[in-house]
């Protein structure tokens, strides 16, 4: 008796299923990554245990996880916001850099001893710069229907290199012994940190942004428009919702939030602008938004999980002498299995007995 595999389209997905699937896909990812870790020559179980201990085994580890969670939540909200309208903003990374660049510019040119006005100016600069960067793709899409995936992706490189130009060039700290970095920010330009840890005020910004995200999407007229366009653009057009204007606005807001992530990261943590200020938070945010199914609370949970992964990854780099790439391999595995499991969300896989003819 022979069997063959049949794929059937699903009509409904149950709520439990919706919740279980992300967990399953993460488990599958950990398994895949485990195989990869074996190739690196370490026992996956031991590696995971070390990761877990490093990230959650101590208060210090936990606080470091929070530190990583902050930019991830903020850029996750940025990306998720655009995704709600099915605008694929892949450019959060570049928008983070633009935000950080504008922050550094504000610090450089607007010296003020008042911490409040300094931080406000930095935030406004970051929001405008990130928003502008997002807007470019939005306008191109609204006007000429240019695919935003390509433009936002391209603009990432432009933004990163632009930031590097200033860091290596005119804004380089003369007293840095040749290291590429701007001078350290004055204390008035630093976000306060809490309780001897590196957790900074950005955590409040992250939580507030999640709440606003939820509020806008769920309760405002604009949020309703965004959801309608995302669910069915033709129906939205029929409803009289203007697509072009919304694309531009959503890309602005999305970019602005990502820009803010850049600001909190350098004002709260690094205290200066240097190359590699974001190790790909903007890209990880895409995975986060996707895994969270664009749900605001989900973004917090998944970001925290990613934070664990990053901190744990640093631990095993040190303890097990693994290359930096190993954590990225794990992340890649997760994205891969999320996409693979998306298939199972849409299709049932059945084993069917072949009839003999």
């Amino acid at each position, binding site marked *: 008796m022979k069997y063959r595999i049949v794929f059937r389209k699903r009509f409904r997905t149950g709520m439990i299923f919706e919740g279980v699937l992300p967990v399953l896909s993460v488990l599958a990812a950990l398994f895949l990554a485990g195989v990869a870790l074996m190739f690196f020559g370490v026992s996956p179980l031991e590696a995971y245990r070390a990761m877990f201990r490093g990230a959650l085994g101590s208060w210090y580890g936990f606080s470091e996880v929070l530190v990583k969670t902050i930019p991830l939540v903020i850029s996750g909200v940025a990306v998720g916001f655009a995704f709600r309208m099915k605008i694929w903003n892949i450019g959060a990374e570049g928008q983070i850099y633009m935000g950080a660049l504008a922050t550094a510019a504000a610090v450089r040119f607007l010296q003020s001893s008042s911490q409040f006005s300094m931080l406000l100016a930095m935030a406004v600069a970051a929001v405008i710069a990130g928003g502008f960067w997002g807007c470019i793709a939005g306008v191109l899409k609204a006007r000429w229907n240019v695919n935003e995936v390509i433009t936002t992706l391209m603009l990432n490189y432009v933004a990163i290199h632009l930031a590097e130009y200033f860091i290596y060039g005119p804004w380089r700290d003369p007293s840095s012994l040749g290291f590429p970095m701007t001078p350290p920010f004055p204390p008035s330009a630093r976000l306060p940190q809490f309780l001897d840890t590196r957790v900074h005020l950005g955590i409040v910004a992250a939580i507030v942004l999640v709440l606003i995200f939820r509020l806008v999407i769920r*309760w*405002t007229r604009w949020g*309703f428009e965004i*959801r*309608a366009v995302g669910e069915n653009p033709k*129906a*939205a057009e*029929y*409803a*009289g919702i203007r697509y072009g204007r919304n694309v531009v606005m959503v890309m602005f807001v999305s970019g602005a939030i990502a820009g803010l992530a850049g600001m909190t990261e350098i004002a709260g943590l690094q205290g200066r602008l240097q190359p590699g200020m974001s190790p790909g938070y903007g890209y990880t945010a895409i995975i986060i938004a996707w895994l969270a199914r664009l749900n605001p609370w989900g973004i917090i949970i998944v970001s925290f999980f990613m934070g664990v992964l990053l901190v744990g990854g640093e631990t095993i780099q040190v303890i097990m002498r693994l290359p930096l790439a190993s954590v990225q391999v794990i992340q890649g595995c997760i994205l891969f299995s999320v996409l693979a499991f998306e298939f199972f969300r849409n299709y049932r896989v059945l084993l069917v007995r072949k009839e003999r003819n």
Partner: protein
Amino acid sequence: MSLSVPAPLVMMRGIEKSFVGAKANSDIDLDLRRGEVHTLLGENGAGKSTLMNILSGLYTPDDGSIFIEGEERKFRTPRDAISAGIGMVHQHFMLVPTQTVWENVALGLEDQPFSLDKNSIIAKVRDIQERYGIHVDPHAYVWQLSIGEQQRVAIIKTLYRKADILILDEPTSVLTPQETKALFQTIRQIRQEKHGVIFISHKLDEVIDISDRITILRKGRKVATIPVQNASKESLAEMMVGRRVVFQIGKTLQNPGKVVLKAKDLVVRGGRGIVCVDKFSLELRQREILGLAGVSGNGQEELCDALAGIRQIDDGAIVVDGVELQGKPSREFQKKGVSYIPADRIGTGLVTGMNIRENIALRKYWRKEFTRFRFFVHWENIAGRTGQLVERYSVVNPGLGFPARMLSGGNLQKLMLARELADDPRVVLAVQPSWGLDVSATLFVRETLLEQRDRGSGVLLVSDDLEEILSLSDRIAVIHKGKLMGIVEDPDSASEEQLGLMMAGTSLAEFLPDDVPPGHVPVRAVP
């Protein structure tokens, strides 16, 4: 073996087929004799297409058997079925638009040599055309043909493959009355040649006209097979729906009021930049239903999109209640009381992933009474309103928070009617409002439109179903290739013949006696 009764051409026994969540066919038997036209009659979703897709090898049945001339056969692919002499013209048949008719006929032939023998193919095509009276130029490109002509190509294609058993899935749904007549001529010819034809439809008049026997399906089950002599429209409808159906709807004469919608010399382009609506003018008055008849795809949808402000117009004017609206955003049209029931419910009119409240909100959320603190949606008010509307339009639903996709087709349409009609709009644009609905939902839609007319709205009813147009309209306009063929002022005086010819491109002026100036309006007395 007894020689007396030859085995039927096709014998299907105990056919079962389930899809996820739906039993499409259960325990269905069907016989087709030689020289017979056998009609499958049933509402949308009754399982007609599924049963025929099984016979033509597209689906494999979960259970049951198929006999061709007494011999059991199992079709695993359409190819198997074709070689057994079965040819099916699908509801949504596919041809290659960039190729000619004869190339399309030759496409996918079994024993194809390296190069096609063009002359012999064309000779064979012409032979088929001759024999069955199917007229279409073999050298024409498919994109040049109307839907009706394309259907003829699809039929030639199956006959070319020596189909002994021809299955036609709702062929008349895309045809004018004249084209339907021509098709029936062809079907009778095929019957004459002792082939078998399975014909699918849910239009009762034509079923009685063409069939020898009729098998009625309801909800995936066979209700009965009866010879046409024993069938009446009423009995068929009752078997099809499962209860008594009243065909008459009470339409009273109304005294139309002033003009609410005026379109002047509208020029509208379609998706590919082709002019779809060409210098189209029309006036719609209060308390009237203006039927717009035409074969679908002749610019009706583009016209209505333009009249609703959703599609840009190239030229012309749109005036609602004396205010010019052309070039304004569609929200302005909504504010002036233009309602729109688009043909594509699921793709355009509703957001099936959103819940019922949100679907009611879709074209109302911007209104004052549904706005709070300027930027926020007043969901409580929307919920309250939705509750009333769902009740008033009897939308059967699992709960207002459930996604609209969980509603059945009829209830989806009721939901849209509720949203579009509840506030007594000035203008109602209704495109194919009863398309694909079952009999009772169709009746509900039609009665609701009439009621809306009586409440003072001007209704533009677009339909390719002449019966619907004739039974509802106070005046009838006919569109062909985006042009107005004329307006028949008195539907009672219009014959289906005449409307059919107009739908095929004859303008009304050609029917009028010479001394009556075109555009002359016979005034109707109002009691």
